[in-house]
């Protein structure tokens, strides 16, 4: 493998305009040298911006770097340049599955299967996606459709404030433990405790930053991720309110929802609900 990299590097040095940057980038990616792989791929694409395999490589490097949306966008570009590109269809199916977009994942993988080369991996992936879709359909996911008798269950504190199934809110205490609300993952599981524990650590960094920069006590943090928009605001007794919505939710609406949930949390903690 190291020999391959050396040979391909020499070849690229001899002819910087060649397309050998693709096998070179792929070899580096397989070795886990992602920064170098990215560097060679971007340079290669500067010379060959319409080379589908170059964009395919950039997408695979992006997946390895944990940048799923970027990978998806690159594969989308590949399909524009080379309609029906098998690697792009498989890759987009993978990204959609990771993002919980199961219907689209099945569409892309089915399109890959239709290329007709009998790829067993694709067939297995389709079966996996279908199984996940069946599993999801069987689980109650929308907290606004509450079972009867749960009106006083703190897990459903924000159910009527949130308007869509892709919106979820959690109220955490100062130790990051869930007081109320739920965080429902795409597969229907409540992962509130795990998400709360991870996200509550951000508040220490926020407090340090605002104190040292003399900005006053922080009032909200919003960050956009590949699959969600997450908004946080401090709550009573050093608690934390976390709201997560789908990427499709406009940021202005996220802020309004955060305010509404914060008000609901205050009333609940004040014993007014």
């Amino acid at each position, binding site marked *: 493998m190291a020999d391959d990299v050396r040979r391909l590097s020499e070849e690229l040095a001899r002819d910087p305009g060649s397309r050998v940057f693709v096998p070179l980038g792929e070899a580096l990616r397989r070795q886990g040298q992602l920064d170098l792989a*990215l560097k060679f791929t971007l340079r290669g694409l500067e010379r060959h911006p319409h080379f589908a395999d170059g964009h395919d490589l950039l997408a695979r490097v992006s997946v390895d770097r944990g940048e799923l949306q970027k990978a998806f966008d690159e594969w989308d570009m590949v399909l524009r340049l080379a309609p029906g590109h098998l690697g792009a269809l498989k890759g987009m199916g993978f990204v959609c599955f990771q993002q919980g977009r199961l219907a689209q994942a099945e569409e892309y993988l089915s399109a890959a299967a239709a290329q007709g080369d009998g790829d067993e991996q694709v067939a297995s992936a389709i079966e996996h996606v279908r199984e996940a879709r069946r599993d999801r359909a069987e689980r109650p996911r929308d907290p606004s459709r509450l079972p009867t008798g749960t009106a006083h269950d703190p897990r459903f504190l924000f159910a009527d404030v949130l308007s869509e199934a892709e919106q979820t809110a959690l109220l955490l205490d100062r130790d990051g433990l869930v007081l109320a609300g739920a965080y429902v993952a795409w597969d229907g599981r409540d992962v509130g405790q*795990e998400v709360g524990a991870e*996200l509550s650590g951000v508040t220490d*960094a926020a407090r*340090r930053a605002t104190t040292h920069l003399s*900005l006053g006590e922080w009032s909200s943090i*919003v960050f*956009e*991720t590949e*699959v969600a928009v997450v908004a946080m605001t401090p709550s009573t007794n050093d608690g934390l309110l976390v709201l997560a919505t789908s990427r499709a939710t406009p940021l202005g609406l996220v802020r309004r929802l955060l305010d509404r949930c914060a008000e609901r949390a205050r009333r609940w903690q004040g014993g007014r609900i």
Partner: protein
Amino acid sequence: MIARPFASILDGLIRQRWVTAALVVSERDGIVVESNLQIGQSGDRMAALAASLYRKARLSASAAGLGAVSFMQLEAPAGRICAVGGGDLVLVVVAEPAVNVGLVRVEMLRAVGELLAIGGEAA
């Protein structure tokens, strides 16, 4: 002559109304790579704190299964901190509360590609 590879990004951001500082920071160690600050501000401290905050948000989101973080903003009574990541670099903007965050966000997300490209060259 000192090379300023991120000058166009930073100069574009600092020109936005109410923006008081724009910096490119190494996410790993919080060291300033390049900055454009208003007089009297300490870039080093700002860079370290903002990079630490962004890094924490990125790691937390990843651990919570939310994927990679693109844009982050923190709001406080006396100002805002906005950050976007590009490879090992973080582009940070500090602004007064009246800033148009929507505009800053668009400019910052637009700069990510450039950040990645130049950051890759510099690495």
